[in-house]
Structure formats: structure tokens, C-alpha cells
């Protein structure tokens, strides 16, 4: 048993005695797997991006591997992997259970989706002195033991303070409008009403029912040994200590399989949020010494990893790739309507976080040209960006908001649900994806899955996803993008032809298929 942990300073974890079954399994090298849910177990929002991948694979892993599989989370404080029951894992995967990694030792079961006022009180109760101060201000008697007792009863809040603030402000449309104006953004009351509805829907969909202390949910450790492969595909740069895991591996000889999304922070650090450049450089720097296997989300990423390892003299790791699924979990067509700003309009759609790498600027410049030239009708045609506001886009957003030629024709939506996104895909004329580089390009797959003709840049992995279904334009070729968009808006026959071609020829990858390929290829690496 991996009792390096027995010397750990915090609470000694409850150790697990190996059963006869486990001992038998241990005799088969590489036959035991543990799917790490460290990210999902912390996640409180809509499952997008990496969280989505982790959950989609994890939910199918039990069926694939049966009793070869454990679920686990990584305990950063004690540098160990804690076992999670299948039932608890499924709750995490469905977003109904969150683990509290804070290790306060006192965190009780939290209440379900508390009202905002209760949420705020829960936050204050986590800071008893501050709570006491509020009581003093309100002229109430302060009784610290009572405050601690109340804190224990109330439990941990399920919404972050930031989100709580947003929810509160969003509940007061005029206030929200005023604050957004101060931030240089303009929303009509109608748009705010829509945001309110989406927010409510999102909370109902995604907030976990319960939040449980880590050691309560996972008292046992995963026995580490040469027969074990840990599969990890979350936001590991935030939730793992790879240097400690490297040491743990050296001691117990288990194997580590990492899902690798892209090497953009190493190849194109200028397209990455500055804080994350160092964090991710450090993560990848250690990952390639720690991981035995890299499961890449595209051939492109696999190629990038291979080249990086050769270039940096890093030890070769077993590599394979698998596609991501393109189906959204909510495909109920009657579930959501188009936002009012798009009703009765024809629009081109780009779904991505707004940040320099995604190259919204190219679309904005192209769109400005089209409007200026009269190549699209500003009354009926719209350019739609769906995605949260990322970093380093202040000037672009300012231009979009203030350019009198285009400001009424570019629609920006964020924080929308899967159902609302499905509605947007269904209603779009065609899709756009001008990104400077991608490790996969899930929105392109989703657009094609919805039968949308697409114009995409040919960078990174995008040609793998788009194949011959897509019109490719260089991400810096503004005229090329403008012409391609103008054609699809003006030539209905061509649009229909492309739509038919996509519907007939595009073979979407479902998450079932993606997971099957993932399991199959990982199995081949682990047990060659």
C-alpha cells in the first residue's frame, strides 16, 4: 500500500486493505484504471470545454472497463489519489455533487441551491469575524459560539461571491444596465430580461445539489502500483501538483495517462492569457516527464506533442489521438427560442470565447467591409458572436460597440445554455471559425453536426474536423472572409447546395463514438 501518506501532516487518510480481488488484479500489469474527476468534482457551472470532455468520457468509462475501473480525485494536500464510489462519481458527472477540497475538516453538507440572501449569509458565515461585525452594525448581540454553530448548520455556499454579485445585479435590470454602461457595454432591457431567464435556467441546470467535504466523500485511497493507470484530463494545471505526482510515481511505479488538448501555450504564448502562460508552461514542462501516455484530442495536437518532445529532448511517451464528440447534451428542439435580436434575421454564427486567438477581429473587419460595400443587408443580416468576453479584446469590443456602420448588426451573446445554443445553431445561415490555431475546434464540429455550411481557417486541427465540408480562408485574409460571407448571404442556391452537402456527407462524431475510440486507443497504449 502506498503509505508514503502515513507521514502526512494533516489528517491521516483512511487506508484501504487490498482485497483478494485487488491482489489478483495487481498481478496483471496495466490492467487497473482510475479515472480522475478532480476538475468535475470542483466544477459548479455549465459543463463546457475541458470539463465537458472529462465528464463525457468518465460517464462512459464504467461501462467500458467495468470493475477494472475506479473513479478518483487527487488530494493536493496529501499527494494521493482518493477513491470515489461509482454512484458518487455519477453524481459528480451529472453536476449534482461537488466536493469541498478546502479540507477545513468541519464543512458540513451544504444546502441545495440556496436563495441569494442565504448564499450571501453563507459566505459571511465563513468569515465569522466579518459576520459578527455585520451583526454589530445591525445592533444585534454577538455570540461567537452561536455564529460558529450557525455556520456549521448553514454549510458552504454553492455560488461564488462573484457570481452572487452578478446574480444580484442581474436581478435589478436598471442597475445591471447602468453597471454595464460603466463597463462600456450596452444592453437593452429586453436583452437583460433574456439574460435573467438564461441565468435562472443555468442555475437550475448546473448548480450541484450538494457539496461534500473531500474526505467524507472519498475516505479511501486508490492503491498505487505498477498495474494501475490513472487517467487525467481536467484542468490539471489548477488542480494537480505534477512534481509531487512525479515523485509518487517514482515510488509506486503506477502509470499516468493525460488527455492533452493543445500545446498553444508553448507554441503561441502570445495568444494565451499572460497569467496562464507561465502556469501552463510549468504544467507541460513537468507533464512530459510525468505522463506515460498522452491522449491527444487531434492528430494535430499529437503531432505538436511529438515535435515538442523531440525538440526538447523529452522522454518519448505513448501517444494516440481521439476526436471529440459534436453532439450537445440537450437536443430538445422545442426547448429554447432565438433571442429577440435575431428573430426574423439571417445570421452567420461564430461560437467561441472572445479573445485574440479566436480572431473575432477578422470577422469584424470583414463584416465592416461588407456593410460598407452594401454586400449584405444591414436590416436583415447579422453577425453573431456567442461566447464570454475573454482577455485583450477591449479595443475590439469598443469598435464593435461604437462603429456606426456595424453596431446594430453585430450581436454578442454570452452565458447561454446548451438548449439556447442549439437553437442558435439551428437558426443560423452558416457558421464561421476564423481561429488562429486550435487543438480541436469543437464549435466547428458542432456547427457541422447541425448541418451548417462553414467558413473556417485552415489552422491547427481545423482541417481534421472540417475535412472537405468546409470553405477554408486564411485567418488574416479579410477580403477572402468578406467575399465568402457575402456569397453565402447573397447566393441562396449556393447556400442550399452547401447545406445539403454537409448534411449528406458530414459524419458527426457522437460522444459515444468519441469515447469508444478514446477507450480503445488508450487500452492499446496501456496494454500493447
Amino acid at each position, binding site marked *: 500500500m502506498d503509505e508514503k501518506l502515513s507521514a502526512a501532516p494533516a489528517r491521516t487518510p483512511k487506508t484501504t486493505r487490498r482485497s483478494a480481488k485487488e491482489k489478483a488484479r495487481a498481478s496483471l500489469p496495466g490492467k487497473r484504471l482510475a479515472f480522475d474527476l478532480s476538475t468535475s468534482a470542483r466544477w459548479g457551472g455549465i459543463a463546457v470545454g475541458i470539463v465537458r470532455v472529462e465528464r463525457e468520457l468518465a460517464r462512459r468509462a464504467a461501462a467500458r472497463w467495468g470493475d477494472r475501473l475506479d473513479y478518483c480525485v487527487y488530494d493536493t494536500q496529501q499527494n494521493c489519489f482518493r477513491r470515489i464510489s461509482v454512484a458518487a462519481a455519477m453524481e459528480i458527472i451529472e453536476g449534482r455533487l461537488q466536493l469541498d477540497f478546502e479540507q477545513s475538516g468541519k464543512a458540513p453538507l451544504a444546502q441545495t441551491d440556496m436563495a441569494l440572501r442565504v448564499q450571501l449569509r453563507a459566505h459571511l458565515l465563513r468569515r465569522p469575524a466579518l459576520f459578527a461585525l455585520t451583526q454589530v452594525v445591525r445592533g444585534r448581540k454577538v455570540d461567537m459560539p452561536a455564529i460558529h454553530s450557525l455556520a456549521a448548520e448553514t454549510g458552504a455556499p454553492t455560488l461564488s461571491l462573484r457570481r452572487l454579485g452578478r446574480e444580484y445585479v442581474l436581478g435589478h435590470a436598471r442597475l445591471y444596465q447602468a453597471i454595464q454602461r460603466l463597463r462600456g457595454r450596452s444592453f437593452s432591457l429586453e436583452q437583460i430580461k433574456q439574460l435573467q431567464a438564461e441565468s435562472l435556467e443555468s442555475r437550475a441546470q448546473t448548480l450541484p445539489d450538494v457539496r461534500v467535504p473531500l474526505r467524507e466523500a472519498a475516505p479511501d485511497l486508490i492503491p498505487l502500483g505498477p498495474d494501475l493507470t490513472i487517467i487525467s484530463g481536467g484542468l490539471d494545471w489548477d488542480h494537480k501538483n505534477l512534481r509531487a505526482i512525479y515523485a509518487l510515481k517514482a515510488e509506486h511505479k503506477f502509470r499516468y495517462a493525460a488527455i492533452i488538448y493543445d500545446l498553444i501555450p508553448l507554441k503561441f504564448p502570445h495568444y494565451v492569457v499572460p497569467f496562464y502562460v507561465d502556469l501552463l508552461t510549468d504544467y507541460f514542462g513537468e507533464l*512530459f516527464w510525468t505522463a506515460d501516455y498522452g491522449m491527444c484530442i487531434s492528430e494535430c495536437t499529437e503531432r505538436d506533442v511529438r515535435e515538442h518532445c523531440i525538440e526538447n*529532448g523529452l522522454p518519448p511517451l505513448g501517444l494516440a489521438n481521439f476526436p471529440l464528440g459534436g453532439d450537445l447534451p440537450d437536443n430538445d428542439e422545442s426547448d429554447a427560442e432565438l433571442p429577440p435580436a435575431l428573430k426574423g434575421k439571417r445570421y452567420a454564427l461564430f461560437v467561441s470565447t472572445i479573445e485574440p486567438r479566436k480572431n473575432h477581429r477578422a470577422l469584424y473587419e470583414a463584416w465592416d467591409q461588407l456593410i460598407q460595400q452594401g454586400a449584405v443587408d444591414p436590416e436583415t443580416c447579422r453577425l453573431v458572436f456567442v461566447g464570454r468576453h475573454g482577455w485583450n479584446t477591449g479595443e475590439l469590443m469598443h469598435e464593435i460597440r461604437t462603429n456606426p456602420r456595424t453596431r446594430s448588426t453585430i450581436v454578442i451573446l454570452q452565458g447561454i445554455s446548451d438548449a439556447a445554443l442549439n437553437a442558435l445553431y439551428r437558426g443560423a445561415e452558416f457558421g464561421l471559425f476564423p481561429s488562429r490555431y486550435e487543438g480541436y475546434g469543437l464549435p466547428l464540429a458542432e456547427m457541422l453536426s447541425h448541418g451548417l455550411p462553414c467558413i473556417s481557417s485552415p489552422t491547427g486541427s481545423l482541417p481534421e474536423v472540417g475535412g472537405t465540408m468546409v470553405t477554408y480562408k486564411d485567418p488574416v485574409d479579410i477580403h477572402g472572409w468578406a467575399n465568402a460571407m457575402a456569397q453565402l448571404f447573397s447566393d441562396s442556391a449556393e447556400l442550399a447546395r452547401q447545406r445539403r452537402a454537409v448534411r449528406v456527407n458530414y459524419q458527426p462524431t457522437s460522444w459515444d463514438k468519441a469515447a469508444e475510440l478514446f477507450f480503445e486507443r488508450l487500452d492499446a497504449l496501456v496494454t500493447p
Partner: protein
Amino acid sequence: MTRRILALSTYPIAKPRHGGQLRVSALQDFYRALGHTFECAAVYTAPYGPGTVGPNDIKLGFVGSRWTDTPFVTDLASGRFAAENPAAYAHFSGLVARQRPDVIQLEQPFLWPLVKRLRAEGKLDGVSIVYSSHNWEGPLKEALLLNAGISATKAAEFRAEIEAMETELAGASDIIIAVSAEEAKVYAAMETSARILLAPNGTSRPPGRLVESKAKAEFGDAPFMFFVGSAYPPNSEGFIDLVATGGFYFLPPHKRLAVCGGASDAIFSHPEYQRFLGANSQRVHFFPDLGDEDLWAVKASAHAFLLPIKFGGGTNLKSAEALASGKWVIATSTALRGLDRFLDAPGVIVADTPAAFRKAAIKVMGSPALKLTKAERDARDTVYWDRALALSGLGQAIGEARTPVPSRA
């Protein structure tokens, strides 16, 4: 024929540490081994003092605000001080009178004003002048001052002053000892009748018996790279720019790099090093204050030497040391100035960019310990001081130098 040689410098050599001191000290050993007498007299500044200075040395006094208001020009001020300060001039005149040298050897040009005055006053009649040039100093000083934030006008003035001094001294010399072929060419192009010799910098031979390496405790038997540098800023800057940028992720998360000497503090606290502190700390071990014996032991157990030198003239002593070690050497072309014959030598990789340095480090760390043939080993041995100076022709040239006029003897 034995000679009485008096060397003049701007640093004492009682306890040689830095490159210039080591070179003068090596020349002292060389001359004495040939039977000549050799004394050195210096104008020195802090941190030298009791214990590190000899009886012939004198401390720099105040010579004017021009010198105190500008950093890094005490060497230039020393020449003015020795020539113009009555007590200092009396000190050196007395020394010349007592020692009656056949040869005055200037270590760098800075004390030329003193020698010029002694000659003008007839105190060095018939005495041969040897200009032991460590660098072509003018441009180096200008670059140093510009880096220190001194105005371009002022930096150019100092450069011009030094170059004028170097030119005058070269014209008056009987022998010029250049440190690199490039520098020798500069002197050859001047109006001088001096014999121009090339004596690249060398290194001392290691002690016969080594102490146990302190690296053993940190590195075990694993191969490691070795870097040593003083607190002189270009040392840490070169290391950061060429070696440390982007972290040491090309090395496994075990100790694989020894950083020694006074540069350690500046490297450790540099933002680029701190950027990936967690990873770097796994891979790098600092030895900021090793004694000579321990340093020799660490060098002897290293797998490769790193010479990320971006700035400086002449031949770098550390480069000679690295080559003499017989280990893998990764060096900039600047680091191999004066040692150009090793540019394509087996086991020597020239790298002038961070990418090239990294590529070389990956190659070297993935290679077994360097094995040299006898011829290759012999070639590397030529960088030991005794061999380097013997090959320069200096012994013969000094033997043939003119002697002072008998009446002055």
C-alpha cells in the same frame, strides 16, 4: 639572460581571484620559472586591503570629481593618481630606484601616465616596455558605461581617452602581448616597432589531489552541467538570457545543473529564474561560495561546462578552464575569443542563441561522458598557462629585450 621585471597593474595579485589577476599571476609564475625576477606593484581600490595586497601596492586616493562621479573608471583614475599624486608618484619612483628593473610590464594600459612621466624624467632609460594587453579596452569601457546608464557623450569621451592611451603605449612598447588574434591584428596595424606576441588566456592546472566533490551529495552519480561566474553583472545576464530563459524543463526534475560563484544570487533572484522557481529548484543547485578546492572538485565531477558569455573582450579564463577540463563545453563564440582553434573541436559546441544553447544542452546531457583522443587531449592542454605562455614566444622575446643603459643601472 635573466631580467628584473616590474609589472604595474590596477589590482593586487597577492591573492588572485578574477581573470586579470590570474593572468598577471600566471605571467609571474612563467617568468620566475625562467629564472627572471618579477615584482608587481598596483594601485588598488576596495575591496582589496590587508591580506590581499602586497608591499608594492598603494591605495587609490582622490583624484578629482570626474572620477568619483562616474562608475567603473577607477582603473583610468589610477593612472592619473599614480602619475600626479605626489605621494603615489614618490612611491613608484622609489620602487623603480630600488628595484632597477630591466623591463616594465604594464598590465592593461591604465598606468601608462605613470610610466610616461617616469620615462620623461629619465628614470626608465633603456628599460624595455612590455604592454601586456588584456583587452582592447576603449570600446569595452564605452559599452560598460552605456550599460550603466552613463550618457553616450561621456562614455565616448572615456573611450577616446583610453584608446589614445592604448595607441600611445603600443607605439612606445618593445613587446606587446595580445590576448587574441583579433586584438593582435589591431596592434599590428598601428605604428609600432614592438614585437607582437599572442598569448591567449590560460588556466591553472588542477591540484594533484582533489577533495571529495560537494556535488556528490546533490547530484549523486548523475551527469550535471556546470556554470561558474562572479557577481559581475554580464555573467548572470548571459546565463539568464542563454540558459535559463523559459525554465529548465528540458532537464528531468532532478538536480542536473550546478551554478557556482557570486553570480548565484543575481541568477536566483532574476525574474526569469523566479518565473519557474518550483521547476528550476528541482533541477538547479547553487554553490554560491565554494572555496578553491571544492570548486576544483565540482568541476572535476561535472559532465559539461556552460559558457554563456555575451560580453567582453580578450580571452575568457573560464573558457580556458572549461576546455582544459576535457569535458563537454557549450560556449558562445564570444566565450571562445582567442581560443578560436577550438571552435570546431570535438566536444565543443558553439551556441549563440537561447535555442542553440538549449539544443546543445539536450545533446550533451543525452551523451556519455566525453572521451578525447590523445591528440585532442594534447590540444586542450595547450590552454594551461604554462603551455599557453611557452607557445607565445614570450620567453625568448624577454630574453632578447634590450637592457638599460649601464650608467642608469
